[in-house]
C-alpha cells in the first residue's frame, strides 16, 4: 500500500517544488555566471579557486580558530549533530567538506560506545555462559569494535584532509576511516552507497549548493538521511546585533592574531551572511528530492541543523 501511495505523493509533491525553484529570487547573483564570495561578486570559476585558497591558508589553524571564535561552543553543536544522527554500528557515513575530521571522530566514538553497550547488554542477558562463549564475546569486541561502521571524509581541499589525517593518527583513530579528495558537486561515489550524509560548516562555501544537494540525494541509500550543520539566521533581534558586532569586529581580528589571516576570516563571516535562511534552505533541500525536511535552531539560530530523508 505504501508503494501505491508513494508515486502519488511524488507526483503531487514535485510540481509545486519545481515552481518554487523558478520563483525563488536569485540570492546575490549579479549576472549569469556570477556569484558571491563573501560580500564581493566574482565569477563562478573564480569562487572555487578563492575558497580553496582560503581553506588552504587556514587549514593548520582551523581547529584553534574554531575554538577561539565560538568559545568552544562548536564542539557542543557537533555533539548535538551526532546525537541527532544517533548512528547504530554498521552505519556508512559520508562526511562531505569534512576537512579536519571533527564529525568523523565523533561518529567513531559514538558507534564504538554504542557497540560496547550492545555487547555488554548481550552478555548480561545470557545466563549460564560457558567459558568458551565468554571468550568469544571478548574476541568479538576486539575484532569488531566499530561493528563494521565506516566513515568516508571527503573534502576538496587536500590541506584540510592532511590536517585531519594527522589528527587521526595523533588521537589514535585507525580503522573505519577514509580520507578522499572529492568535489561535493560531483562526488566520486556510486548511487545509493551511504546511510548518512553530513556536511558541517561546508555547504555555504560551495559554488552550486543545489548540485551538492542533488549529489547528496544520489549517493544516499533509500531511507538514508541528509544532515547539514550550518550557520544560519539568528532569530532574536538583540542577539542578532551583538552577533553581527562580534562577527565583523572581533573575528577577523582574532584571525589576524591567531592565524595571521584577516581576509580569510573576513570571508568566512561574510559567507555566513550570504547563506540562505532556515526556511529557504529547507526548500532547497526539498527541491533535491528529500522528504520530511526539518531544521533545528541551536544557540538561537546562530547555527541550524537541517535534516532530510531519502524515502
Amino acid at each position, binding site marked *: 500500500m505504501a508503494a501505491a501511495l508513494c508515486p502519488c505523493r511524488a507526483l503531487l509533491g514535485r510540481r509545486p517544488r519545481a515552481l518554487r525553484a523558478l520563483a525563488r529570487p536569485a540570492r546575490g547573483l549579479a549576472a549569469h555566471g556570477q556569484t558571491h564570495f563573501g560580500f564581493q561578486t566574482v565569477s563562478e570559476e573564480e569562487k572555487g579557486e578563492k575558497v580553496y585558497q582560503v581553506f588552504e591558508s587556514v587549514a593548520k589553524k582551523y581547529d584553534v580558530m574554531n575554538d577561539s571564535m565560538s568559545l568552544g561552543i562548536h564542539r557542543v553543536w557537533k555533539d548535538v549533530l551526532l546525537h541527532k544522527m544517533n548512528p547504530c554500528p554498521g552505519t556508512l557515513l559520508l562526511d562531505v567538506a569534512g576537512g579536519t575530521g571533527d564529525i568523523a571522530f565523533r561518529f567513531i566514538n559514538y558507534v564504538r560506545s554504542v557497540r560496547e553497550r550492545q555487547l555488554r547488554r548481550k552478555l548480561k542477558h545470557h545466563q549460564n555462559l560457558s567459558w568458551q562463549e565468554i571468550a568469544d564475546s571478548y574476541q568479538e569486541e*576486539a575484532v569488531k569494535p566499530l561493528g563494521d561502521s565506516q566513515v568516508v571524509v571527503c573534502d576538496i581541499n587536500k590541506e584540510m584532509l592532511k590536517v585531519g589525517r594527522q589528527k587521526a593518527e595523533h588521537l*589514535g583513530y585507525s580503522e573505519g576511516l577514509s580520507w578522499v*579528495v572529492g568535489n561535493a558537486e560531483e562526488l*566520486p561515489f*556510486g548511487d545509493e552507497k551511504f546511510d548518512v550524509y553530513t556536511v558541517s560548516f561546508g555547504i555555504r562555501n560551495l559554488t552550486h549548493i543545489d548540485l551538492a544537494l542533488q549529489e547528496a540525494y544520489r549517493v544516499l541509500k533509500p531511507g538514508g538521511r541528509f544532515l547539514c550543520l550550518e550557520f544560519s539566521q539568528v532569530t532574536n533581534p538583540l542577539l542578532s546585533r551583538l552577533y553581527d558586532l562580534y562577527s565583523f569586529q572581533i573575528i577577523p581580528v582574532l584571525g589576524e592574531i591567531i592565524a595571521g589571516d584577516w581576509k580569510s576570516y573576513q570571508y568566512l563571516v561574510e559567507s555566513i551572511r550570504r547563506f540562505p535562511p532556515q526556511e529557504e534552505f529547507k526548500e532547497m533541500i526539498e527541491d533535491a528530492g528529500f522528504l520530511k525536511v526539518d531544521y533545528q535552531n541551536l544557540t538561537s539560530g546562530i547555527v541550524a541543523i537541517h535534516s532530510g530523508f531519502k524515502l
Partner: protein
Amino acid sequence: RSPERSGARTGRRGGSRSGRRHVARRAARGSGAAAAEPESAAAEVSVGRARGLAPSPIAIPTPPALPRSPRYEAATQELVNEELGIAYPVVDGIPTMLPEAARKVPARPAEQH
C-alpha cells in the same frame, strides 16, 4: 540507561574490562597502522560514475548493482576502477577523486556471477 552504564563501569568487572579494552585498542591500532595506506581506503570506497568523463547521463547504461571496489595500483600510485576505466592519482595516501584528476585506463567490465 545511564544507571546501567555507570553500574557496569564501576561494578564487578571494572579492572579487567578496562585492561581488556586497552589491549584491544592497542591491537586495533597496530593492525590499523599497517593498513593505513590506501589499500584500506580502496576497500572502503566504491567508485561510481565520473560524470566529467562519461557522455551525457542519459546515454550511460544503468550500472550493475555494486561496481567492484577499486584497487590500489602501487606501481603508478593510483586507485584504479577497471569497470569504469578510470584511475585516480593517490598523493600522500589520499586519493584525489576529482573528475579532472582522473585518467582513462582500458576498461574491463565486471564478470557476470
